[in-house]
């Protein structure tokens, strides 16, 4: 394995690090993984999670490019006038260009953590080179069962003496539900891991359908860090039961993983899970 940091993109203002397996030229599939920022965390990842994934991928014959998007980590801000999400999709495409130029990469997968997952699926919608994506703590639309479980969990935490406050809370809930229609955005989804913008479920489902139609391999994963939003294994199936693509994507609830992988065990579980899926769903693709 060899690692090399490089600058790329317009004016060389983006910074990324390539990790290349020793036998890269002999690898038949030659996938390159894209690893990037999660929120404002630089490209190495919280607890160097991206560094560890990159080195593990190298042992599988997968090269990787971990890079900072505009204005994050070591990369300079952009003056393109584009929105942040739009700019970061362009940056991701530039990272693919740079990997192609440097090591001849042609096929890509992306491991997107939190906001990186948003950029991964948005990039895949635009760029056919991105054939697979791991989407960690992406959009979440709590089901009725999830809400009930969240309430019960809260009651267990604060004690059942708090039950006397329930009637007031219920009245508030009913008033909110009966209030003016929202803009179509999911009320619950606002603020999921600090997201200020997220598509409604009705907007999200057809976007994923387009990726499935194009045979982009997708792995959705949810951590145990937001039990108010996602709190049981089958929630993903319940959220998207009528999507038409449920049986064509992979998903998992990993309650022992924390969102950032602060714990060593969380990183190990996550990396094992990603590796198993990449072996079974990516490396055997035609």
């Amino acid at each position, binding site marked *: 394995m060899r690692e090399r940091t*490089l600058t790329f993109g317009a*004016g060389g203002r983006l910074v990324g690090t390539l990790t290349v397996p020793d036998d890269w030229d002999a690898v038949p599939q030659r996938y390159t993984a894209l690893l990037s920022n999660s929120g404002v*965390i630089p490209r*190495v990842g919280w607890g160097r999670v991206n*560094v560890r994934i990159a080195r593990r991928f190298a042992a599988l014959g997968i090269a990787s490019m971990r890079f900072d998007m505009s204005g994050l980590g070591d990369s*300079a801000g952009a003056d393109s006038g584009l929105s942040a999400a739009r700019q970061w999709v362009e940056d991701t495409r530039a990272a693919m260009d740079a990997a192609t130029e440097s090591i001849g990469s042609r096929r890509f997968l992306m491991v997107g953590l939190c906001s990186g997952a948003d950029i991964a699926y948005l990039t895949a919608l635009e760029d056919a080179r991105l054939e697979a994506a791991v989407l960690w703590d992406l959009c979440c639309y709590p089901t009725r069962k999830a809400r009930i479980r969240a309430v019960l969990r809260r009651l267990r935490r604060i004690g059942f003496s708090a039950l006397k406050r329930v009637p007031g809370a219920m009245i508030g809930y009913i008033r909110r539900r009966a209030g003016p229609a929202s803009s179509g955005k999911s009320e619950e989804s606002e603020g999921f891991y600090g997201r200020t913008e997220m598509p409604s479920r009705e907007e999200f489902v057809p976007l994923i359908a387009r990726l499935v139609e194009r045979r982009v391999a997708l792995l959705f994963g949810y*951590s145990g860090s937001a039990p108010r939003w996602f709190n049981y294994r089958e929630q993903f199936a319940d959220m998207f039961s009528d999507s038409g693509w449920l049986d064509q994507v992979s998903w998992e609830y990993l309650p022992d993983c924390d969102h*950032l992988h602060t714990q060593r065990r969380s990183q190990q579980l996550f990396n094992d899970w990603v590796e198993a899926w990449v072996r079974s769903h990516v490396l055997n693709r035609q």
Partner: protein
Amino acid sequence: MTLSVVELGRPERAMMGLLQPPDSSVPTRQAAFILCRPLGVEAVRTSAMFRALSERLAREGCATLRFDYHGTGDSAGDEREQTMAAWVTDVLAAHDAVCRIVGHDNIHWFGAGLGGNLALKAAIRARLSPRRLVLWEPVTDGGELEARLLEGHRDEVAFGRELTWQEVRRRELEPEPSLPGWVLGFDYGQALVDEMRQIRGLPLSQAARRGIAVYCAISDAERDRLDVPDGDPVMQIESLSDASNWMTSRVTGQPLVPPGALRAVVSGLG
């Protein structure tokens, strides 16, 4: 302002560095900076601060090197095998590289958190001293650092489960953190922990005796731990009423770069 990647250190202690050249639209100064990062989660949280400092210094006409010590960040190596003593040699290697690149020895160093301690130790040892040291909240008590790391870990893990740490422990969801060990995403080895525990005060006077100008920003509570000669003209101590907290993933409303830090690095340019 095109960045260039600099490979630093001996092959067995390779490091990744980024050199930010002076902005081409301003006159170039005969001065360069080396920025020494703190460690682990603090390096993650201060990455934007280091980029912003580099860009600001570029607009002042200075070249700036920021880099990852061996075994950290983007550099090769395993963090568990690292020591402060070895990282001090990394700082010295970075200094030699910058002197070669810029062709002069008017080099200033900035170190934040434990990076400040490494910079100070390296400055005392350097064959060719840095012109000035800017130390931003260096560690003055290794025991306190250890306690803050453990508390930061508990807080982050509990936050990640939407529980209190007491609940996490009562339900036996996660083990109590300890050093040496994995804390806040960083794998601290025994040798590193032993060195950290030995930190008591800051030997600023040793740097002053070498003629190095020192600026040190530190909390009010820690000020009496500094070894500062009275009336030393090359020593400037700044008291901070609020300490930075770089041990949490939450954005806490702190500015990207403490305003005083920008002032401190620029003011020393004369």
